[in-house]
């Protein structure tokens, strides 16, 4: 069914990103905002903005009933959830379907299947995708110890309802396992409403590799290349790039194939990302989780393929077959994305809100900035700290790194502290230049950054 008017249930740069995609597709846009975002850039660019509640996201962006009511009231025929907030909420997807609205994303069933990380592991296994040795649901600390001894320490305890780096604890010795198990279960119960835990072998020198997939209603699934998101801080991605450097092409092809196999096996529809952990020492990869949404870092895949993933989301949701076959998707050159956050890297990355006094993003060939910020914009205190994504393209990785360095140098932001100085520092590191990143690299080099900047 063609979509003529979509309600965008998000804020910030991704709201603007989706609005711009819709303008090109000739789809009218309705944006739901909180009171804090009434005058935001996406609210002004959308054809219509509707304030659905106060600043607190639980009473606005996380209220799926208000979102569906706004869509119906505004005469929208579809809802795009962006990322975060309700993007992976089966309740929103179900409510949309019940009211005859097209949900621009996967089905509620796909979200449920992949939302429970234990079930996701089983689905990966069933598809023949490698998973880490570990457990299914663990019932007691004693059981946890027995499994950990079989798998071998260190192990990582994860919340079944967690994901996205939340609700995880590494345990090095059997001695601390029982205690950690109890506290992790309590924390998971409080944070996710489900205390269920499972165990996986912990990989010390790990890289985070993920594969962008697109699936249509007719069972066709393609990949749009892999991304390396190893530069993380507290399990949150900081720098992403595509393709993944320093992994042999045949192994990368194997990873991409595994992702497609899993998505195809569950009849996955729309854009999704299959995440893997890559063991840098053993050169092997294992399934981590699948994200059933468009992701923050999708632009790097767009940049090296020329595919507009958000526009594809709309075509798929309209029930059209994929426009491109796997053979049409050519990975060309190298793209890097840096997340510019309103955080003080020298103060433990403390988020800081306030008015942006000067906002001068870099311009030039092969530079893309996805942002909702401008000079005079007040960064609200209620939401995440992402201000912009700086994406550069180069025909080689070295060229892309050089372009990123120079672009960061020209990126002027005053009024609020940003992560730009830290990103600039990372771009200068030999480990990054050599592609020798692991998920603990940032923690390893952070003291040097802090020392150097004092």
């Amino acid at each position, binding site marked *: 069914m063609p979509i003529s008017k979509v309600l965008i249930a998000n804020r910030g740069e991704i709201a603007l990103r989706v609005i711009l995609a819709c303008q090109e597709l000739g789809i009218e846009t309705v944006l739901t905002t909180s009171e804090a975002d009434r005058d935001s850039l996406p609210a002004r660019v959308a054809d*219509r*903005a*509707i*304030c659905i*509640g*106060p600043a607190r996201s639980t009473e606005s962006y996380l209220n799926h*009933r208000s979102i569906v*009511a706004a869509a119906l*009231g505004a005469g929208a025929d579809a809802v795009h959830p962006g990322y975060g907030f309700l993007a992976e909420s089966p309740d929103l997807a179900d*409510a949309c379907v019940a009211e005859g609205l097209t949900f621009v994303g996967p089905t509620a069933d796909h979200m449920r299947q992949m939302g429970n990380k234990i079930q996701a592991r089983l689905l990966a296994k069933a598809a023949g995708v490698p998973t880490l040795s570990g457990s299914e649901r663990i019932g007691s600390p004693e059981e946890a110890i027995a499994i950990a001894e079989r798998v071998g320490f260190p192990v990582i305890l994860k919340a079944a309802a967690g994901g996205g780096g939340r609700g995880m604890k590494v345990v090095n010795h059997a001695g601390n396992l029982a205690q950690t198990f109890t506290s992790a279960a309590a924390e998971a119960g409080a944070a996710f409403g489900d205390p269920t835990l499972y165990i996986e072998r912990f990989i010390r020198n790990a890289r985070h590799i993920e594969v962008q997939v697109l699936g249509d209603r007719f069972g066709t699934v393609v990949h749009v290349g892999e991304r390396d998101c190893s530069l993380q801080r507290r399990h949150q991605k900081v720098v992403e790039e595509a393709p993944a450097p320093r992994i042999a092409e045949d192994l990368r092809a194997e990873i991409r194939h595994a992702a497609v196999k899993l998505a195809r096996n569950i009849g996955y529809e729309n854009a999704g990302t299959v995440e893997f952990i890559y063991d840098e020492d053993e050169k092997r990869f294992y399934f981590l989780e699948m994200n059933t949404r468009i992701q923050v870092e999708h632009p790097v895949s767009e940049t090296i393929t020329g595919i507009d993933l958000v526009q594809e989301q709309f075509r798929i949701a309209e029930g059209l077959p994929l426009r491109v076959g796997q053979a049409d998707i050519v990975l060309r050159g190298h793209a890097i994305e840096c997340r510019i956050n309103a955080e003080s890297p020298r103060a433990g990355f403390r988020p800081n809100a306030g008015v942006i006094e000067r906002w001068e993003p870099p311009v030039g060939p092969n530079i893309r900035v996805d942002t909702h910020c401008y000079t005079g914009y007040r960064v609200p205190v209620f939401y995440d700290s992402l201000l912009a994504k700086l994406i550069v393209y180069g025909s080689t990785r070295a060229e892309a790194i050089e372009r990123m360095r120079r672009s960061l140098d020209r990126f002027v932001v005053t009024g609020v502290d940003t992560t730009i100085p830290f990103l600039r520092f990372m771009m200068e590191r030999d480990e990054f230049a050599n592609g020798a990143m692991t998920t603990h690299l940032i923690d390893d080099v952070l003291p040097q950054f802090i020392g150097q900047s004092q």
Partner: protein
Amino acid sequence: MSNDLTSLTEDHVRQLGRIIGTLEQSTFDFLQLEVGDLKVTIGKGNVPVPVPDAAAAMPPRLAVSSVASTSAPPPQVEPAPAPTPSESPPPTAGSVEITSPIMGMFYTRPEPGAATFVTVGESVEEDSTVGLVEVMKTFNAVSAGVRGKIVEVCAPDAQLVEYGQVLFRVAQG
């Protein structure tokens, strides 16, 4: 809050904690308790205007509109065929706004064909119901929250209203 906090026992504090927890989970904005001399008001956001009897389920947020409204006006929505009153008088100084406590479909009458809850010139009490806002088939009564005379109906019947949108103007008194 009472100024007599010293009379609160540990047990009182514990009970209050539980009430706050319950309020957090609920859709109510505030809660007023009176036990003997002790009067406690717990709420989220703005301090509610005093409500005479039982607390209204959905207290409207009130904004005194002097010349310049303090809160940013809702952005101009798509020109819906809104039957805006032809004479749109500048809000009289001292008049107060009744704003929508939630986003949803606004109804000026209890059911189609029925008389409107209020009309211009009609007097309202704080707890008078002035309209309904529907969210996914749940109807929320909007109370005036103020005593006075309706001077303007600002939102048309059966149209989507935003959170905080002005529904009525009332001359206080």
